[in-house]
């Protein structure tokens, strides 16, 4: 009985903290919206740089009701999807090879670690020359962006696999394919999911930036078109959609990774 008392006392305290946290969040959101509206109506900035909330809301509704938005969303999603499949699988293969072989790791992993965080968008002129101005160059940008985080995570994940599991696989004379599918991948699921999560995030950025630079399709193209025609409410609406989609997909994969961890535990 004595042990149960603090637990019962702690429950309302947690509930009260949660309520206060929610109140602070609501207050912050309302304060930001009010400040935005006040700034929009004050005339301090050039007209339409900070459009009123109702204009942004209207643009958002109009955007989501247009068929061409979904067509462009489809193009961007297709480019990112192909980029993640190609870049992710190539990164996974490279990561497994580097993680499984110390010599290869010593020879090439420094290249991965140093090239990984370089600004990939500067490779876009090269991609344009290699793959043209269509979807190919955007997919290539996504591939280059996605490859490095997946490879680095997979290499690190390979080194963390319990040596006993690898010895068991070898004692059963498992083929390389069987080792990869039955031992390596299940054992390194968490780092691989994390790598794909990071890879997807940077592939989205790489692909969309490429679309803003030179394209006639995709969400990046729509953003730069809205900028070129100074249609600010539409640009804000597009940026809101892009941020919600990016953060949402990232959170979804993160949850998938945590779900995996719970399953393993």
């Amino acid at each position, binding site marked *: 009985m004595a042990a149960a008392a603090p637990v019962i006392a702690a429950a309302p305290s947690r509930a009260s*903290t949660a309520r*206060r*946290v929610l109140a*602070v*969040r609501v207050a*912050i959101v309302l304060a930001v919206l009010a400040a935005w509206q006040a700034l929009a109506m004050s005339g301090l*900035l050039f007209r339409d*740089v900070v459009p009123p909330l109702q204009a942004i809301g209207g643009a958002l509704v109009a955007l989501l009701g247009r068929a061409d938005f979904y067509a462009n969303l489809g193009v961007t999603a297709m480019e990112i999807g192909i980029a993640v499949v190609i870049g992710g699988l190539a990164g996974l293969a490279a990561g497994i090879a580097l993680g499984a072989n*110390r*010599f*290869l*790791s*010593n*020879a*090439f992993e*420094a*290249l991965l670690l*140093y*090239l990984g*965080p*370089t*600004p990939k*968008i*500067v*490779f*876009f*002129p*090269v991609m*344009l*020359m*290699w793959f043209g101005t269509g979807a190919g160059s955007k997919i290539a940008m996504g591939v280059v962006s996605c490859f490095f985080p997946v490879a680095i995570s997979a290499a690190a994940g390979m080194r963390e696999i319990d040596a006993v599991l690898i010895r068991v696989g070898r004692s059963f004379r498992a083929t390389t394919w069987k080792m990869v599918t039955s031992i390596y991948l299940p054992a390194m699921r968490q780092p691989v999911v994390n790598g794909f999560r990071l890879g997807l*995030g940077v592939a*989205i*950025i790489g692909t*969309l*930036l490429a679309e*803003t*630079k030179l394209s006639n399709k995709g969400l*990046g193209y729509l*953003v*730069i078109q*809205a*900028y070129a025609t*100074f249609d*600010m409410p539409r*640009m*804000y609406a597009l*940026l809101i959609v*892009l*941020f919600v989609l*990016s*953060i949402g997909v*990232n*959170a979804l994969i993160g949850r998938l990774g945590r779900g995996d961890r719970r399953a393993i535990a």
Partner: protein
Amino acid sequence: MSAAAAASATSASRLPAQLCGAASVLAVVAAVELLIRAGAINAFVIPLPSQVIAAIPRIVVEEHIPLRFWQTSKEVLWAALLLATVGIGLGVLLYRVRLLRLATETWVGALAAAPIVLLFPLFLVIFGRSATTIVMIGFCAGLAPVILKTVEGLAGTRPVLIDVGRSLKLTRRQQFWKILLPAALPTVFVGMRLGLVFAMINIVGVEYLINFGGLGQLVNDLAERYDLPGTYGAILFVVLTSIVFFDLTERLERWLRPHR
């Protein structure tokens, strides 16, 4: 065996592999040179590696690389200054006000995953095609890790140190400057390093996208002139500059956190 001797032995054992890695890269470059000369690769798509190497001294002189390097460095420095003041300041605020931290920490985490650089057209409208746009994008891109690591560093201060401060009857301000901040500094620097890396990547990227500023603009300029060896040389220069920058910040971090 002493730690230094063990480290030296490990380094020596890696040398053959590292030499093999470097030789492989050189072999690929040589193979590309041969394939282009043999006509198997279109020289109007990939220039001869020898031409790229020969173009580097030319772009250093004709394209004013030191000046461009200084322009990009200035933008990175401004972003670093903003990150150090605003980012660390916000981190301290979140540490001090627990309710605010509980309410906003997940938002700051989401900010780290957001494609901030895509806001560049918006920043172009607000700040114009100027260095301010580039600095602000760099600053926004690097903000989340600085805030999160500052909170983590301050919250991770050993309770015994805080108790020592209390027993010496330090004021809140003295406790912050003499105990909390020095204890959190290594973790804060990890956040600053991550923030600077994000800032640098985004600064060069936006320079390229808006065709303004230093090294990023150089790549765009040369590509628009269809100066293929120059473009490849400039990309190589940007990559090398990034590598030197990351290496320097990593060494500084190791120096600040020798126990890692």
